């Protein structure tokens, strides 16, 4: 088992041990003494941590994160609970309304309504050398999005990528899709670990990588 980032702990909820962070609840998750359960079935990053992937996250106020595909804030709210300045990029206005609510009680969670395929639209806002680039955008060209956003990542930073096979091609075998994504990704990243997330998310691959 890999080490969890500071600020993420295994805690008891109704007699069950679950990952948790400290903050205001966002999606109806159970809470206990200020801790909120992090549901790996609703969060790919939560699934990656639950599966013991070596995410390389330290946690703490100094850690900076760029999160692509924030949706209504389910996962990025947990990230902002344990990390420092967290930039949350989401493309669709409707989930962004809920994201605003999740960000309300989190002073270092910055919501940005933008297209992750156009980093120049937020490069004047997001700082360079972030420690982690978390990506969960259900769109075609997921490897390209990760490559385009490499410019934000520190040399020793980590890309934590969730790949959804069906977003690339609904007809192809997920294994083949994942192989192609890894292949394309290696143009700019060294892949450290990858793992199917099927226990929690059907036909998704979790990837940990660092810029090369």
């Amino acid at each position, binding site marked *: 088992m890999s080490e969890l980032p500071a600020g993420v702990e295994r805690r008891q909820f109704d007699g069950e041990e679950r990952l948790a962070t400290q903050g205001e609840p966002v999606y109806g998750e159970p809470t206990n003494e200020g801790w909120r359960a992090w549901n790996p079935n609703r969060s790919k990053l939560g699934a990656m941590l639950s599966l013991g992937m070596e995410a390389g996250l330290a946690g703490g106020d100094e850690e900076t994160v760029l999160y692509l595909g924030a949706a209504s804030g389910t996962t990025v709210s947990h990230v902002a609970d344990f990390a420092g*300045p967290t930039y949350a990029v989401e493309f669709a*206005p*409707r989930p*962004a*309304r809920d*994201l*605003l609510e999740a*960000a309300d009680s989190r*002073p*270092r969670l*910055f*919501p*940005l*309504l933008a297209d992750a395929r156009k980093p*120049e*639209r937020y*490069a*004047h*806002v*997001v*700082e*360079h*050398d972030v420690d982690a680039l978390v990506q969960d955008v259900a769109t075609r060209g997921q490897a390209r999005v990760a490559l385009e956003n490499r*410019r*934000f990542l520190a040399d020793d930073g980590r890309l934590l990528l969730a790949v959804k096979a069906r977003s690339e091609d609904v007809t192809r075998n997920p294994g083949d899709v994942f192989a192609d994504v890894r292949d394309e990704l290696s143009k700019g990243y060294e892949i450290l670990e990858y793992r199917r997330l099927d226990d929690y998310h059907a036909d998704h691959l979790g990837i940990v990588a660092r810029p090369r």
Partner: protein
Amino acid sequence: MTADSPAEAGWFAGLEPDDPEAAAAAIAEETASEPADWPKLAVEAGFASDAEEYYDRLKEATTVATREAVERAERADDRQLVHAVRTMDDCQRTANELAERLAEWAGTVDPDAGAGVEYARAIVDEDADRDGGVDHPRIVSLAERVVALADEAEALREYVERETPTVAPNLAALAGPVLAARLISLAGGLEPLAKKPSGTVQVLGAEDALFAHLRGHASSPKHGIIYTHDAVRGTHPDERGSAARAVAGKLSIAARVDHYSGERKPELEAELEERIETIQSRTADDESGESGGDDE
């Protein structure tokens, strides 16, 4: 923006520290090809005294920018509603028409032929059971189309019920989501609805009746589609004109609030309720001598 100094390219370039509106505009509209150490550069440029203050300002600016963009997008969504509610009515009407045709035809082979979409559903279900029922492939197929159309109308209704409260929260609360969507559709959008005087809102959907009146064939129409509002329907016929006027007035205000500010104003509901109670009590008083009850 094209200056050599990288600090020029940050969102905060050229901004006064206490102008969140301008900051939000810069967040939304400016660009940069590469990120930089913005917190440090902002402090150097005197935009903030330290990184913490920089992040506080960034928080405010990104929140305002995102909120504005979300609200702009939601206002534009009335187009989707207009199409959805019109399609819902078309599907329902077509399903009913075809169901009539189906009942006529099926009556020639099924002595127990029923009527309406319900009967179409019965034919489809029986066919799935494979015991008895209507044994005519064209009639069964027609029944399937009827059921599919009715199901689509239902799915569209669910969509309208879900979406209207985000597009027009106050109007949806006062009128119910479906009637709210119909009013938006009849007016041609939320903005045109917000700009109509309440007298026009009162007769929206009663155009046929209005033209008959103008041609001298009928009395002036007192209510259009808002006739279906509970507050109008539940009022004694003598007072329905007043009720329709009160409902139209409040719905117009709700549409304006939704279009211009988007904020939720729950007091509108209370005000309408109070007004309707006053109107209804007039007839209740008249009748109280006889019955005292206020059921229809």
